[in-house]
Structures are given as C-alpha cells and as structure tokens.
C-alpha cells in the first residue's frame, strides 16, 4: 500500500487496500465495520479499495469525532459507505478523492443520525475523472442536524454528477447545504440537491445555497434544487447564483497589470477560501489548496 505523503506521519491513521489493513488508531475493525473508541481525530486512507460490502462507520453516544477520509485510486472504483451516529454524537467528516489519471468513481454515502446528533460534512471534490456521488443524510432523531459544505472544481472534460438528499424524519431537525461549484474547461457539474420534510416533522429547518462560476464558454453547471415539504410549520429556502466570473473584479485586477490567468486564478482562489478555511487540519488544507490551485492555474 502506498500511503500519500501528507498522511504518512498521521497518528490515528487507518488505511485499507484490498489485501491489507493498517490500524494505528483505537478503532475496532470487523467485517468492514469500524467502531470508534478513544480519540477524536482520525485519518482514513483508502488505496484503490473497492470492497463488495459497504464500509460502515459507527459512533456511540456522546462521541465527538473528526474524520478525514482520503480515497486514492488509479483504476475505476465503486464503493458504498455508511455512517451511523448514535444520539448526541458530534461528527465532522471530510472527504476527498484523488486520482492521478482519469478514472471513474461511483460512491454512495449514507449518514444516519439519532437524536441530538450533529454532522458536519466537508466535501472537497477536485477529482480528475468522472464522478457519480450520492450523499444521503437521514435526520432520524429529533434535534439532529447536518451542515454540508462542498467545494467542487471540475476540470478537463470531467463529468461530476452529485446528488445530495436530506431527509428530515423527525421534529426539530435542521439541514444547511452550501455548495461552491467551479467548472473549468469542458467539465460538467450536474447537481441535484433535495430536502424532504415529511408531514408532522414540524419546527424543522432546511436551507441550501448553490454558488457557481463557469470559467469557459464550454463549462457547464446545472443545479436542480428541490424542497419537498409536507409540513406547514417549518423554515426552508434555497438560493442559487451561477454565472461567469465577476467582470468588474476581473477588470480591477487587470488594471493593475495582472495577466488574465493570474487575475482569474486569484479571484477563484478567493472564492474557494471560505470553504478551505473550514478545514481544520493543516496538511489536509494544504493538500486541497494545492489540488485546487493546480487545476485553476492550469486553465484559469
């Protein structure tokens, strides 16, 4: 197994490939099921791992955990993941897919939350290849809440198809989705973002915001925001702002002598900053920054 450089020295590292498992953390692993014991920060590295069974992450009551998941692949991969949060869990999950050559990735993530649990998801998508990502959040318990922040930079002629579903299945549940989408070259970002609030699940809140910049004439971003709400006593809303790079900002930087490439890459980096600032681990933050600036600088 070849662990990526920036993860090599991490304590609490758990790494899988199809034949071996490395477990430097206090986590029990049985039949593809991980149960977290002591510790609050873990790094999970998957090297071309495509188990037939889903990979299951279990968190028990009151745990407060940060999980950084890095998937590395140089062949096409299909994987299912599930995360089960007992009551009053505070979980933060970072995910990122890395591939050095163009491959396909199909991933299904399911998060199940019991009462009073909170989930913070940070998805950094800079994947070189076609991606089919499904992310389902089930707010099963009362007062459970999820915040999803997602940065997607599509380059080359990659197609990234992403589906985010949040199911509000109890009262007082809250969800907030913020997507920052950047399409370069001929890439296509195709998003379906849905919030479901069933009848009787009152006092729930469901919000989403989708922002996007298309950098070339052949770049594409499509977002289909949906709110299915069958309950009167809730708060919900969505905002979308998808367009070209801000002309005035570009002109201002050009007027100080920056080339178009430099100016665009500064503006786009600035645009990604609110997302990148949310990444608490410095190595991971640097990894995402370098991945995104490599994409942006190449073809701003």
């Amino acid at each position, binding site marked *: 197994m070849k662990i990526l450089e920036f993860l090599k020295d991490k304590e609490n590292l758990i790494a899988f490939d199809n034949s071996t498992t490395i477990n430097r953390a206090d986590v029990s692993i049985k039949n593809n099921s991980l149960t977290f014991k002591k510790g609050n920060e873990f790094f999970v590295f998957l090297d071309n791992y495509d188990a037939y069974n889903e990979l299951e992450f279990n968190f028990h009551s009151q745990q407060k955990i940060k999980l950084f998941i890095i998937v590395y692949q140089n062949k096409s991969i299909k994987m299912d993941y599930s995360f089960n949060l007992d009551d009053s869990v505070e979980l933060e999950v970072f995910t990122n897919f890395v591939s050095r050559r163009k491959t396909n990735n199909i991933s299904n993530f399911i998060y199940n939350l019991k009462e009073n649990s909170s989930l913070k998801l940070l998805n950094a998508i800079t994947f070189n290849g076609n991606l089919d990502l499904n992310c389902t959040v089930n707010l099963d318990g009362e007062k459970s809440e999820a915040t999803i922040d997602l940065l997607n930079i599509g380059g080359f002629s990659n197609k990234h198809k992403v589906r985010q579903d949040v199911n509000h299945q109890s009262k007082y549940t809250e969800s907030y989705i913020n997507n920052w989408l950047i399409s370069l070259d001929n890439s296509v970002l195709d998003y379906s973002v849905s919030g479901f609030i069933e009848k009787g699940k009152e006092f729930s809140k469901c919000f989403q915001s989708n922002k996007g910049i298309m950098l070339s004439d052949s770049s594409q971003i499509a977002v289909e925001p949906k709110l299915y709400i069958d309950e009167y006593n809730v708060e919900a809303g969505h905002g979308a702002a998808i367009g070209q790079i801000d*002309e005035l900002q570009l002109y*201002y930087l050009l*007027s100080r002598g*920056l*080339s*178009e490439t430099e100016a665009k890459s*500064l*503006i786009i980096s600035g*645009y990604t900053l609110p997302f990148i600032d949310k990444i608490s681990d410095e190595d991971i933050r640097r990894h995402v920054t370098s991945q995104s600036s490599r994409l942006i600088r190449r073809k701003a």
Partner: protein
Amino acid sequence: MTLEIKDLFVSIENNLILNGLNLKVNGGETHAIMGPNGTGKSTLAQVCMGHPSYKVESGDILLDGESILDKSVDERSRLGIFLAMQNPIEVPGVTNFDFIKAAIQTRMKKDEHLRIGRFILKFEKASQDLKMGQGLAHRFLNQGFSGGEKKRNEILQMKMLNPAFAFLDEIDSGLDVDALKLVGQNVTELKSQDLGLILITHYQRLLDYITPDYVHIMINGKIVKTGNLELIKRIDQEGYDWVKKELGIEDEDKKPYSLGTCPSKH
C-alpha cells in the same frame, strides 16, 4: 513620456460619450479635468485604461507616439498607465498583500525575482503613509472598506506601482478634510518628471493640495477650455454656466443622472 489623446470619439451602448476629445500630457505635468456630472470624465479615464464596455469609434490614444488601442487592460497597466477608480471594486478572498505582490511581480523581468523583505517594508511604509491601519496586508481587497479607505487604498497601489501616467478619478469624493490633506500630500510627494498626473474632480478643494499646471473644462464629451489656476477659482464661484454661455454650448441633454448627485456649487 507622453500620453496623447487625439480626436477621440467613444460610445457606450450606442451612446456617444466622448466627442472628439484632445489632450496631451507630458511626464512631470499635472492636469486637472473639471466638468459637470455625466460629461464623460470617468469615460475618458476608463477608455485610456481599456475598460471593455467602452467602444472607441475613432481617434487614438498614443503613448510616446504609439497607439495603445490594441493593447489589453493589463498590458496598458504594465506600460505605465494607472487609474485610481471613482468606485474601487471589492474582491472578496483576495488579500491586499497577494494582490499587490502579484501586481509587482507581473512587472518584473523573467530573471528577476521579488525581494520579499524589501517588498514588505515598502508595503508597510505605504500603508502607514496613508494611515491604512495595521493588518491591511491581510484584509481582503477593498472588502468592507469605508469610502475613504477605498480611495486611500488606490493611492497606496499607485505608490507601490510607480506609474508613468495616473488618472485620479474623483479621488477626493468620500474623503474628509484630514484624509484629503493626507491624499494630497502623498500624491504631491509622488510628483516627478516621470509622472504625468490627470486629476478628475469637481471640487477646488483637491486642487488646494495638489497644484495643477493646467486646468481643463470638459463639457459634453470634450475639452472646451484650458487655462490655469484662475479657471478653478471662477468655476468654484460661478459653476459652468458662464463657460457654456461664452462658448455657446446648449444644454441639449439634461438627463436625470445629472440632477442632484453632485454637491458642488453650480
């Protein structure tokens, strides 16, 4: 160096704004351009910078005798043209430091590289000179700046970039007396044989701090009268009506934008 604007006709969205404008600025000279609102002063500055919305119908802009009309905005900047904008733009997520560093690096030759220590000192000095307060380097470009801070930040950039020709477009608006004095001092310090200054204003008060060599009056998209400091005094006292009367200029287009937006004495 010389910047020469020759018989320039410029339109925006099919409206002719500049109507055969002529102006010649040599290095070392300071020109003031005054005129009522909506007369095309900002248009002149923007078109020299290369703003993509303005269309040059005919005429030319020459830098040392060579046309710059086919040059892009960034090329013009690197050739030495600078515009302190009437409304500086906010760029979230981009720090002042990264921005100015990139602007300076883009002016360096291939084999040169930035002496970062020296750059930081120069930046901090300029920042102090303009009383920008600590931490400017790490604030996002103009984001959340007060009107006055934005204007002072334009002058800071001018200081850092050493242009050959600088248009200061209503640099005085939004500044209180102290800030105006500060900006005036900073700009005056920058005066040299290598800098041609074009001050666009409707107030005399800016010109109390930066003394112009020439004063031009611009009406309906062209310069109709050129004089010296005496001209400013008269405009300050009497407005522009006497110029119009003297030259037989009709107010054919009283558009709403020209109403009430300018607190100068008419």
